[in-house]
């Protein structure tokens, strides 16, 4: 019995042990799971759905903008399209994207824990997200909302005819899902780290998500009360922001941006965390300036709470407030630049490999830098007055949100795909898709910088005829981008069945998540790991020597 299968045993050992995917197979076991890895997959499927909902709205907008006149949709429909696009992409894709998918999957694995601190709360957060999503879809299907994702009063509270309350309720409910996720991560990182895993040994991904979670926990309640006040005012016809009883509509903007500017950092910090994992692994060098990168994350989180007024430079807020907000906004560039310089310094003398995750990481650095530097234009009071509410702003934040966060999300999904699914994605189509996304993205959004600088305002379906060439370029880019996003969906699904079986550590990466099986068992680790060193113990010289031998 024991003698014959001895040789075969190591090969089959991982398959014999149930993984988190096949430990139970019923739908019920998925819908009632408290396993952080399964919840991550629930989120992955959900946000992918919402990504394509938001994408359809964007496609229709870009098609409309092919011609200078409103020929495809009416102005009213166009207003609803950009509202759908903004609301769905921000609250139902970008904010949950990396935190709830990669974060849920990786935070316990990276710190050597069996699960997050509150697994049932984690599942509840997904249900809150889905109920919120259902409200939002309801308001879209039954007629939509035309306020824009910002819901500025008094338009939203008094004049708009759409289903503002239903959509606000959706965001309100999903917001509590965000709070639950953030709270869970903070407590998990504080209390569940494996023995020996001190703060300065944490991967930067954990630092980033920790900061993100602080923002989620402290900013989202303010959004909740702001939207609640707006909705109450709409329902009862009297309220907080109503000028008839001395209310100040501008107060809504202050409260809204007190959440929504930090929310921008919810949408970029996790991306920075992913990139900080990818760059060292694919250049085989320890992350340059680890402590600076870690503290820069926290600094961005703190500064992010102090710059909301830069959305309101032309709102009649005091000019002195504008100057302070301008200076503070410039200061955000310091920690951001620290990160960019440290990533590039990590590449220096590295043994760089251009696998798909690395391509996305490099795209991230370049596009984030463009997005960040154009952010400085906008932080500058005088220039902001010129380009406020133009396509320059649109291009700027899409370079951060799409060029930054979506690139990082895709890079992270590819990087951890073997760990999540136990299968390798096919490298060649993945590289082609990455290039397609990069080209499509730049062709879509770079012309918008020029359009905005020339004065084309955002949120209109009609525009001056001389802007048509650049708009056609942008729409052409959007169609390439759409192909780039559909490709990963296809080959990643394909790889679930036909992909190569992944080894526990296909990238030879450091990090605790790579020390367990692919996919991990239900409780992540067979024994609780003991950590004796910091993250990113890579050796570029050894990697280079190994590579030379391979090429001789």
């Amino acid at each position, binding site marked *: 019995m024991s003698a014959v299968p001895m040789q075969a045993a190591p090969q089959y050992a991982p398959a014999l042990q149930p993984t988190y995917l096949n430990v139970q197979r019923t739908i019920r076991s998925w819908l009632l799971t408290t396993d952080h890895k399964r919840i991550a997959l629930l989120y992955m499927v959900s946000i992918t759905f919402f990504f394509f909902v938001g994408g359809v709205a964007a496609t229709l907008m870009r098609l409309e903008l092919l011609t200078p006149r409103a020929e495809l949709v009416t102005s009213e429909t166009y207003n609803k399209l950009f509202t759908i696009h903004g609301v769905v992409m921000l609250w139902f894709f970008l904010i949950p994207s990396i935190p709830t998918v990669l974060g849920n999957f990786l935070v*316990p694995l990276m710190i050597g*824990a*069996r*699960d*997050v*601190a*509150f*697994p049932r709360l984690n599942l509840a957060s997904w249900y809150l997200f889905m109920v919120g999503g259902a409200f939002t879809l309801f308001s879209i299907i039954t007629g939509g909302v035309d306020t824009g994702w910002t819901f500025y009063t008094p338009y939203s509270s008094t004049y708009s005819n759409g289903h503002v309350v239903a959509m606000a309720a959706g965001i309100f409910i999903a917001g509590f899902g965000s*709070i639950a996720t953030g*709270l*869970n991560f*903070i*407590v*998990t990182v*504080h*209390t*569940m780290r494996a023995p020996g895993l001190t703060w300065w040994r944490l991967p930067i991904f954990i630092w980033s998500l920790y900061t993100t979670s602080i923002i989620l*926990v*402290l*900013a*989202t*309640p*303010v959004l*909740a*009360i*702001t939207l609640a*006040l707006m909705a*109450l005012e709409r329902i*009862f*016809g*009297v*309220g*907080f922001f109503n000028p*008839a*009883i*001395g*209310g*100040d509509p501008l*107060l809504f903007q*202050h*409260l809204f941006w007190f959440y929504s500017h930090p929310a921008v950092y919810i949408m970029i910090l996790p991306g920075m965390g992913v990139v900080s994992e990818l760059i060292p692994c694919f250049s085989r060098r320890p992350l340059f300036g680890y402590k600076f990168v870690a503290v820069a994350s926290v600094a961005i989180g703190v500064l992010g709470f102090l710059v909301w007024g830069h959305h309101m430079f032309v709102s009649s807020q005091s000019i002195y407030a504008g100057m302070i907000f301008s200076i503070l906004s410039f200061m955000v560039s310091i920690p951001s630049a620290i990160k960019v310089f440290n990533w590039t310094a990590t590449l220096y003398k590295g043994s760089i490999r251009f696998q798909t995750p690395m391509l996305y990481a490099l795209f991230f650095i370049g596009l984030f830098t463009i997005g960040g530097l154009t952010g400085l234009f906008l932080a500058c009071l005088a220039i902001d007055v010129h380009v406020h509410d133009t396509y320059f702003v649109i291009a700027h934040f899409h370079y951060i949100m799409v060029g930054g966060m979506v690139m990082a999300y895709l890079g992270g999904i590819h990087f951890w795909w073997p760990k999540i699914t136990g299968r390798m994605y096919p490298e060649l189509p993945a590289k082609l898709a990455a290039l397609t996304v990069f080209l499509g993205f730049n062709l879509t959004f770079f012309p918008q910088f020029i359009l905005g600088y020339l004065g084309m305002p955002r949120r209109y379906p009609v525009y001056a005829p001389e802007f048509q060439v650049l708009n056609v370029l942008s729409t052409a880019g959007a169609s390439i981008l759409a192909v780039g996003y559909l490709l990963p969906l296809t080959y990643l699904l394909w790889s679930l069945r036909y992909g190569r079986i992944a080894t526990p550590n296909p990238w030879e990466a450091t990090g605790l998540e790579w020390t367990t099986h692919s996919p991990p068992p239900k*409780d992540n680790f067979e024994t*609780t790991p003991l950590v004796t060193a910091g993250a990113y113990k890579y050796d570029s010289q050894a990697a280079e020597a190994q590579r030379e031998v391979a090429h001789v």
Partner: protein
Amino acid sequence: MSSSPTTPILAHQFEDATQQRDAATIGMWLFIATEILFFGGMFLGYTVYRYTYPQAFAEGSQHTLIWFGGTNAAVLLISSTTMALAVHAASENRRALLVSLLLGTASLGALFLVIKGFEYAHEVKENLLPGSSFHIVAAEPLKAEMFFYIYWLMTGFHALHVAIGVVLILIFAARAFFTNAFVNHDTPVDLLGLYWHFVDIVWVFLFPLLYLVDRHS
């Protein structure tokens, strides 16, 4: 082993009871932080409008029922005392005392809501509910309406929190009476206490801000 009443149930993700307790405690404090920011939006609005319309706020405040509000402040403070004693009783495993103190706290919370209800009824009768029927004799009636909007909004959200607290305390009392859930496992009671004290402290701020504006004369 796990059915023994003297061993607190350890969830599978934790290594030991200390870790579990720490996690729950940090989680509760964070939850209270989110609550502070939730109320913070309203306190900010209060600050802005009181600074802008000092006279309307003073006049509006004269129309509040100070004896109702004051009694309620006392009721909540006493309920915080009974809650603190309940937490202590839980830590000493005195089940009967815990149950009666929790029931006492819940009764005081309910009393608060009853008093608040009579106060609301009086204000509706006096046309002090903002909306089409709002009427007040004041120098700036519209701005005074804003004061009452804020009054209803903040006390309403606070009353909602009190109501949730009362329900939670009753559930805890029932669990303490019928099961041995809190025997050698007082963390949940401790955290319930934190929530209740938070609700109490919000009222400690609301009472002077809404009832005592310019009342010194």
